[in-house]
């Protein structure tokens, strides 16, 4: 089963002893089967909150407004048991550090057998055969041998491959990869990027890639959402975001990446200023205090989401279609 995912007007706030933190505000996101969606932003932009909200794993002190519809079902309104079922079958998460995703005292094979517990129709031998096939598909040689390894016996790149295999075993409609290459070395990172890209041709669900690394996003995604301080400030086709960015934050973020410049720069570009305090989000545009082209309404009026093309949107007063 695979269907579309749509978060509309999604807001999440955390109730803390120091007041409520508005971690996510009025986020609209949609994804269709077969698409690779990128979510990019710097620390504190709310991308982890968005991922946990999509995976229905928010902590108890989180309050959610708006809706997340997956295949026509509102995830937020499901009861706990059906949420759990959905999480096991339909939504799979690959985290940044695969070491923490595995139980250190069980072999890879045993854990992957357990991951298929909902498949009552399969025997243990069949499950192991499925695992071997899946490990082979994610590029692990000697799959049978590796199944008897413990997580610490595998390298970081290998563990990330196993984590991807584990996620795909349940044949999920939604695969969320949260910073899948951040903990890896650059040569391993390139391999995982290519693995994900190779997999998408055979996999017809939605893949969401969350990263702070613009290179990873550009290499992998079809459509990209750029987040800043809990809001999606711009979204669109990957080419539009990287070559026709309209929101000043997206432009500044792209300009900061030293990987874009081949000539030596005397000074690296930066974005001056700091994130707004999310316990009291500004009434106007969240980026206005750091924005180079802020003008009169930016400080007081929240900017509308301007439609620039069929899929390209930016939340900015200065942008016109």
């Amino acid at each position, binding site marked *: 089963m695979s269907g579309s995912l749509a978060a509309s007007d999604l807001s999440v706030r955390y109730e803390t002893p120091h007041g409520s933190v508005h971690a996510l505000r009025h986020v609209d996101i949609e994804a269709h089967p077969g698409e690779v969606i990128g979510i990019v932003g710097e620390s504190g932009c709310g991308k982890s909150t968005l991922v946990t909200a999509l995976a229905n794993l928010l902590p108890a002190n989180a309050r959610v407004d708006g809706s997340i519809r997956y295949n026509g079902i509102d995830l937020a309104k499901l009861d706990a048991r059906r949420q759990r079922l959905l999480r096991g079958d339909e939504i799979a998460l690959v985290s940044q550090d695969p070491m923490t995703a595995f139980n250190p005292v069980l072999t890879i094979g045993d854990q992957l057998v357990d991951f298929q517990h909902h498949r009552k129709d399969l025997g243990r031998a069949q499950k192991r055969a499925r695992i071997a096939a899946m490990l082979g598909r994610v590029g692990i040689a000697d799959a049978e041998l590796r199944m008897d390894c413990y997580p610490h016996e595998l390298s970081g790149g290998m563990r990330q491959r196993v984590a991807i295999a584990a996620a795909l075993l349940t044949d999920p409609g939604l695969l969320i990869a949260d910073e899948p290459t951040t903990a890896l*070395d650059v040569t391993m990172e390139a391999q995982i990027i290519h693995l994900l890209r190779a997999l998408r041709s055979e996999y017809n669900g939605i893949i969401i890639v969350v990263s702070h690394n613009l290179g*990873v996003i550009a290499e992998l995604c079809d459509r990209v959402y750029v987040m800043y301080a809990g809001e999606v400030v711009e979204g669109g086709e990957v080419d539009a975001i990287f070559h026709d960015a309209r929101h000043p934050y997206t432009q500044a973020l792209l300009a*900061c990446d030293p990987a874009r410049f081949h000539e030596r720069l005397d000074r690296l570009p930066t974005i001056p200023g700091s994130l707004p305090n999310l316990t009291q989000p500004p009434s106007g545009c969240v980026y206005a205090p750091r924005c180079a082209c802020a003008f009169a309404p930016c400080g007081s009026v929240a900017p509308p989401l301007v439609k620039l093309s069929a899929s390209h949107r930016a939340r900015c007063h200065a942008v016109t279609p």
Partner: protein
Amino acid sequence: MSPLLTIDDLSVTFARAGLLSRLVNPFPLPSFNVIDGVTLSLMPGETLGLVGESGSGKTTLARTILGLVRAAAGRIVFEGRDVRTPADFRAMRRRSAMMFQDPVASLSPRLRIGTLLTEPQIIQGLPMPDRRAVAKALLALVGLPASFVDRFPHELSGGQARRVGVARALAMKPHLLLADEPTAGLDVSVQGDVLNLIGDLKRELGFAAMIVTHNLAMIRHVSDRLAIMYLGRLVEAGPTQDVFCAPMHPYTATLIQSEPIPDPRRRSQNPAVTGEIPSVFRRPSGCEFHTRCPIARDRCKTEAPTYRPMGTDRMVRCHFPLQTGGQEREAFSRASANQKGKLT
């Protein structure tokens, strides 16, 4: 001009059993060279980028230079003097400073920033009539507000803690700064801030810097020379622009090709290198890169290449270094294209 720092054939050995356990234990642990025969030099005022992946020994090398890790062989010469005894290292440390990878973890958690910033002077026994004024001056140097003197390390953001790290490193006006992953964990909009700050202060104070990193995109803009490490050995060294434009060692070439490009129109077609990074505990025979090298030949499996000069200012450890426009480079692109066909 004579070099500020010269390292000659430096090796560091881990897990070597002591004399007593070697007598008692019939199966002593074998020893491993985590740093093996590293030779490099650093001129005054120069910035050297030391690049390698995890496990390449780059952090261990930096710590060995300052005497936190003991070298098993080789020599270190700092400002024309041999550094051998603990007293030599102390004298050297007085003229050098290190920035650690995790800026918050390298600040003593129960002390205030003001105390931490003036600690170097207190330890050196320098007279300081007004500690707070000195601390505030240092904060101003790195562009932080004076009110930070009363803060604790955990109350700072990553970028702010990094600035405090810079201030603390430069408090004693060192001649050499060793920075271990100065941008690790920083957002792309903040890492430029820290690097620009180091660059500005370098121009102002004239120290030499050695930046240990795996971030190629960043080091390209801030270093004068590069040294590439793989499994505890240097495989290539040379001026930064030359190394980036025409890498000679196949490993350097694969590193540069592996960097994801932030441009969807220029997506890399295939990964530049396959296979896992071997461990120093099971160092491959011959050339240590032959297990992953797209142009490895039989000779590479048996005979370890020497670290030899190429041209006037470059060093490479390879039997068949890539020459600009030469046969090997074409062979490399062909071979790495073939290898990709075999992948997943």
